Structures are given as structure tokens and as C-alpha cells.
């Protein structure tokens, strides 16, 4: 450990010396340096946590939190923005690899279990959370004066956001742990299914909210069309790009690294330009590749996963650096209570699901631990509400930001623990590569 701390000391001294002897730089000149320092230091933090028998990725997150703009400010806001740029590419790559994981033939076997678990978990969470939030609404620091249908609609919006998961974080934990097995497959499928249900559900509750708040019908159509496009457009764009990439892999198969990078850049840029959900787009692309050319898809997935640790370290460090700790200080108690209730309902929903005959019990019981994470998509939904309803919407956003801060930090560690308990950590390394053509 002394050697590692000495190395960290040299890295930090080098960074300080550069800052002292050269003019302060901005933009692309700092990007590589910020990434280099982040990778090495986060990796050391991961080592440290591993020695304390905690997951390495908690170390990456902790590094981001401690060195991020809210605490030590070693990763300054411009550096955090640079990391965010890379983070978008990382999310595209992670989602693409997760899509490569979804072989229809393999999924068909566990489809019933996935539907049962997703149905019971989301259903129970929705009903219970909506009831609790509606009942507690007058005491919540969001819009206590609301009543009638408006209060119900506001509670329904907050419920939808609180129920939602983080497919990106789930996929990143799976990739970082090199996990394979029933728990991995079921959790991933449940999270993705929930993401689609969430987008549809959110469209409906926002419509209800606008109706209850007396907003014009034109705007109703706007939000609904936007969210419908987000869903259908993402799947269509992803399928198209995936099909093109599958053709390239099968017929050319050269310079795959560069073409893959190009695909991720195109995915992020087109998603931004066409207002589609980047994660769903990349997921659909990976899914199409895996099911059109399975041998190439499997080989690509294994190869990318082996080379992806640096991308995952940056993803988790950037996630840590972006945690808005100040929101926790404002509404911390409420956020902690919400996070606790959410976890309790997650566990209960999954336990209910495992009583159904189609769900394999031992891994099924652990699925709830893979659903704790929340991240970017949830924040995006809160921003939509805040823009539509600037008064109470902004207060709701603060609560959601604080809730995400908790779940974004706890979620990956809890899921890693579940994968370890299920004996699926490192499963990808134990699997014999298939050679079927």
C-alpha cells in the first residue's frame, strides 16, 4: 500500500507542479490530464476499498464524491464537465454491451420469470408508494397546499420517478464484475423492461398532471409526443444503427475498435439531435447485433468487456463527481426516508414475485438488490417536471436529486454484493467462449 500511496503522491505533485509552472488551461488541453488523474486515483481508491472488503466500484464513486466539485474540488467543475463528455460515450458503450447480452433464444427461457418479477415489483411499488405519498403530501416540502386531483397527480408523478431504476448503473456493475448467470440476466431484463414501463407511465401521469393543473391541451400533446418519440424513435434508431453495424461486422470485420467508437459517437450525437433516449438507442443497437449475427455479437461483447474497465472507472468516478451533495443537506431526512421506503418495497415486491412458480427462487430473491441504483434518467424526468411547473416542480426536483444521490451511491455496492452472493462475479471469465459460426 505504501507504494500505491507514493504513486498517488507523485501524480498529485505532478498535477500541482503543472498548475504552478504553466498558465491555467481550459477545454481539450485539460481533458486527457483530468482523465489520467481520475483513472489512476480512482483505481487506487478502489484498491483501498477492496482491502476493506468493500467493492472496488464504491472506491471509484467515493473518489468522485471526495475529489469532486462539492467537496475537495480537485476535480473542478470544468474537469467534471470534461468527464461528463466521456461519460456519455461510456454510457453508450455500456448500453451497447448490455444489448449484446440479450440473446432472444436465451431470454425466451426466462421470459416468464422476468415478466412476473417486473410486474409484481413495479406494481407493488407503484400502489404502495402512491398511497404513502398521497397520504403524506400535506407534510412534504413540495406543494403541501395541493388538494384533490392535483394532489393525486403530483403524488403520481413523484411515485413514477421514485419507482424508476438506473439501467446504466446496473449494466456498468455487471460489466465491472464480469458477471454472468441467472441473477445477472434477470436483473438486467427487469431493469430494461422497467425503463420502458417508466417512460410510458411518465407520459400518462404528466398528462394527468397537466389536466389537473388546468394546462392547455397543446402542451399535453407536446409532452406525450416527445416521450412517445423518445421510446419509439430510440428503438427505431438503435435498430437501424445496430443492423448497419451487424452487416459491417459480418461482411468486413476490420478496424472494429474504431468503427465501434464511431458508432458510439454517432449514437450519442444522433440521440441528442433527434431527442431520443441514448441508453435505449444503444441498447436496441446491441440487441439487434446480437440477434442478427450472434457469433460476432458474442465475440465482440467478450472483447469489449475485457477492455472496458477504464471506461467503467471513468463512469463511476464521473457519477461520484456529479452527486449533488448540497441537495442532501437541504432535504436529506426526506430523501433518506424515501430511499428506505423504496428499498423496503423493492424487496417486498421481489419476494412476492418469487412466490410465483415461474421464478427461480435462489437468484430471484436477490434481484431487488440490483434495482436500488438510480441515476441520470431519473434526474432528466425531474427536470421535465421542473420546467413544466417551475414553482413546486423545482422543489420536487431537489427531493429527487437528493434521493438519487443516495441511491446512486448505495445501489452499485448493493448490487455487487448480490452478484457476489449469487456466485456470479467473474462468471464471464469462467465461461468457455462459443465458437459456433
Amino acid at each position, binding site marked *: 500500500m505504501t507504494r500505491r500511496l507514493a504513486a498517488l503522491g507523485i501524480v498529485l505533485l505532478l498535477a500541482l507542479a503543472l498548475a504552478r509552472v504553466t498558465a491555467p488551461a481550459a477545454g481539450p488541453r485539460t481533458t486527457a*490530464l483530468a482523465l489520467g488523474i481520475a483513472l489512476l486515483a480512482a483505481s487506487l481508491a478502489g484498491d483501498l476499498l477492496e482491502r476493506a472488503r468493500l467493492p472496488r466500484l464504491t472506491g471509484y464513486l467515493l473518489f468522485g464524491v471526495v475529489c469532486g466539485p462539492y467537496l475537495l474540488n480537485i476535480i473542478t467543475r470544468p474537469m467534471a464537465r470534461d468527464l461528463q463528455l466521456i461519460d456519455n460515450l461510456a454510457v453508450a458503450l455500456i448500453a451497447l454491451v448490455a444489448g449484446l447480452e440479450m440473446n432472444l433464444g436465451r431470454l425466451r427461457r426466462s421470459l416468464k420469470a422476468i415478466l412476473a418479477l417486473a410486474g409484481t415489483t413495479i406494481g407493488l411499488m407503484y400502489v404502495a408508494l402512491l398511497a404513502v405519498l398521497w397520504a403524506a403530501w400535506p407534510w412534504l416540502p413540495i406543494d403541501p397546499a395541493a388538494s384533490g386531483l392535483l394532489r393525486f397527480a403530483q403524488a403520481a408523478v413523484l411515485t413514477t420517478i421514485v419507482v424508476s431504476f438506473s439501467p446504466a448503473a446496473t449494466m456498468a456493475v455487471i460489466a465491472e464484475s464480469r458477471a454472468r448467470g441467472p441473477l445477472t440476466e434477470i436483473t438486467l431484463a427487469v431493469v430494461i423492461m422497467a425503463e420502458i414501463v417508466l417512460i410510458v407511465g411518465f407520459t400518462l401521469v404528466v398528462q394527468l398532471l397537466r389536466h389537473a393543473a388546468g394546462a392547455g391541451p397543446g402542451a399535453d400533446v407536446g409532452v406525450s409526443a416527445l416521450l412517445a418519440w423518445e421510446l419509439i424513435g430510440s428503438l427505431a434508431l438503435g435498430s437501424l444503427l445496430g443492423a448497419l453495424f451487424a452487416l459491417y*461486422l459480418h461482411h468486413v470485420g476490420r478496424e472494429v475498435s474504431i468503427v465501434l467508437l464511431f458508432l458510439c459517437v454517432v449514437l450519442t450525437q444522433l440521440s441528442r439531435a433527434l431527442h431520443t433516449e441514448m441508453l435505449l438507442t444503444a441498447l436496441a443497437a446491441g440487441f439487434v447485433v446480437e440477434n442478427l449475427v450472434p457469433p460476432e455479437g458474442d465475440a465482440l461483447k467478450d472483447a469489449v468487456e475485457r477492455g472496458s474497465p477504464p471506461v467503467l472507472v471513468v463512469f463511476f468516478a464521473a457519477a461520484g463527481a456529479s452527486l449533488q451533495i448540497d441537495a442532501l443537506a437541504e432535504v436529506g431526512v426526506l430523501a433518506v426516508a424515501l430511499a428506505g421506503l423504496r428499498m423496503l418495497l423493492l424487496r417486498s415486491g421481489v419476494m412476492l414475485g418469487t412466490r410465483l412458480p415461474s421464478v427461480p427462487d435462489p437468484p430471484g430473491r436477490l434481484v431487488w438488490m440490483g434495482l436500488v441504483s438510480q441515476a441520470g434518467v431519473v434526474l432528466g424526468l425531474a427536470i421535465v417536471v421542473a420546467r413544466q411547473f417551475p414553482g413546486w416542480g423545482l422543489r420536487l426536483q431537489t427531493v429527487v436529486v437528493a434521493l438519487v444521490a443516495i441511491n446512486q451511491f448505495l445501489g452499485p455496492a448493493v448490487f455487487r454484493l448480490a452478484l457476489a452472493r449469487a456466485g456470479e462475479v467473474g462468471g464471464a471469465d469462467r465461461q468457455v467462449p462459443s465458437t459456433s*459460426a
Partner: protein
Amino acid sequence: MRPDREAPSGLDPLDIEIEERVPPAPRRSWLPRRHHALGLNPVTAPAVVYVPLGYLAGPAGLGLVSAPALGYLDPVVSVALAALGTLAGLAAGDILRHPRLAAVSAVEAGATLLLVTGVVASLLYAWGVATALPPLLLALCLGLGASPSSAPALVVEHPAAKVADLDDLVPILGAAGLLAAIGPGPDAWLLLLATAAIGVSVGIVAALLLRDGQPPSERVVVVVGLLLLLGGAAAYAAVSPLAAGFAAGAWWRWRARDAGQVILADLRRLHHPLVVLFLIVAGATSVLSTQALWLSAALVLSRLLGKLAGGWLGSRVAGGVAPAGFGLLLLPPGVFGLAVVLNAQQVLGPGAMTAALSATAVSTVVFEVVGVAAPHEGEP
């Protein structure tokens, strides 16, 4: 200077892994078979493909890679340069093992440098062309970019292959000195010291972090982090990432050989995509103006003369070690020449170096195309 002669800029790691699992379709081998049928060298240099592709995609072509996108790719270029410098530094041990060939390579590269610099500077003065940099400095940058060779088609034991590997040293160190002297930094000696300090610091960090039995997933994070730190720190301090990489590589070669071996193994997997991106950026940054085309013509002719003269001089210096007329084998420039000039453009700014970069890009493609027809599989 490369430790792996089989692959001039490495092979794509994903290509290799996919091909191991999924046997390639017969049509994939169409290009090499056609090459063999025509008696041509089967090695297609990446510069021949990616520099023109970059030009087509760049702002002067279809505009798919815009000027802001090139800005975002700047850190990738710094890291690619650092990776190339590291490979050169790691291979620097050959100097001790082949002192006579090292002398030949210094003479050959020096002769090319002097001839190109002299011819281009004379033409620039004679034509009275207005350049952002003083003509002699511009010519010197072009000369440094013209001096490396790659000889990709030769077997590793061939003396010309060794010379081609060793002659990258002159432009890397020469460019580091030149850029420190004419760059925007405060003091040339301070900048040179900073370059070495960055390289050695990262070298020490690697020796402290890389250990035996480290899982590959942890090791790759450290190696990628080290490369980013190397390229990023050099770019931040406005010094040469090539030279900083060389300093780190040489330090690993002489002071921490175990760490050097680990880094070399991972670099072989990582550097191909980096080199391809850097070639695309070089192509996309090029502008084929009248000035650039005239410079290209002058550069191609003077480099041809330089390599022939350098080869002749080299065989005189160490007769018996290097065959007469081996300069012809050194015509393919590889990627180091373009790396040196792109590095100069990073430090001096696009206005000063665009014509020089474009000329070097054209010259690189021309010589690599000529290299396809060059003798291959040569025996010592």
C-alpha cells in the same frame, strides 16, 4: 523504432479477438491475394487508408469531422503521440545492442534532415513565399518529419529494418528541442526539463503501481491512466508528448524493465486504434492549398534524395553492416514523421503549420504507396 516489426502500427485488438472466435469469410482475404498476384508487398500501411479518409471526412472535405470535433480529438492525438513515443523509448535499448547500426541510422536520418531542410528552405526563400513561421524553421520542421523510416516489409534481422527502427530517435529528440526553443513556453531549458520530468515521473508511477500477478482488468486501468497522464501532462505544459513518452519508455527500458514489459504488452493492444485516430486527425487537419501542394512536391523530391544519399553515406560509415543502396528500402516513412509535424502543429498552432502538415501528409501517403511496390521479405 518499434518492438514489433510484424505489425507496423499494430493490429486492431477487437479484430484479432473476433477473428479467433469467428473464422473470417474467404472474401476478407481478397486484398492480400490480389497484392500477391501483382507481386506487391501485402502490407498496406494504415496511412494510405486513413490519411485520405480523414481528409475526405474533414472540414476541407465532406465536413463530417468538423473543426470543433477536431478540437475534441486533440487529447486523443496527445495520447497517441505519447504512446508512439513510449514505444520508441522502450525500443531504445537496441542502440546499445547495435551501436554501429545506430550510427548508420543517425547518419542516414541526419542526411535526410539536412537535405530536406536545405532544399525546402532554399525554395521558400527563392519563391519569396509568405509563411507564418520563418522559412528555415518551417523547413526544419519538415526535415524532422521527413527523416523517420519504417521499412515494414523487411524481416526483423535485416539491417535496414534495424536502421528504420532506430532513425526515429533523431526527429523525436530534434522536435522536442526545436519546439522547446520556438514554442510559446518561457524558457527552452525549462521546457526540456519539464518534458523529461513528466516522462520520468510517469515512469516511476508505473513502476510503483504495476505488480506481478495483477488482474488484467486492474492492469489495463493503470496502463490507460498512465498513457492519459503522459499525453495529458505534456499537452497541458505545451511540451512534446512524443518526447515525454520517449523519456518514460526509455526510463522503463533501463530502470524498470518489468513495468516496461507489462506496458509494452498492453500498448500492443491499445496503440492501433490510437494511431488510426491520429492518422484520421492528420488527414482531416490537412488543407490542400497551392502552397501545400508545392511544398509536397519539394518534400517528396528532397526526401527521396535525402534517403538515397543517407543510405549511401550510411553504408560508407559502416561498410559491411549496411548494404549499399539500402536507402531505397527506407522510403516508407511510417507514422513518426506525421507524428512529429502534428506535434509541432499542436504546440505552434494551426496557422503556422497547416501547410507543413498537409505536405507531410501527402508525402507520407506517396512514399507508403511507393513502399507497397518496394522489395519485401528481404534477407540480410
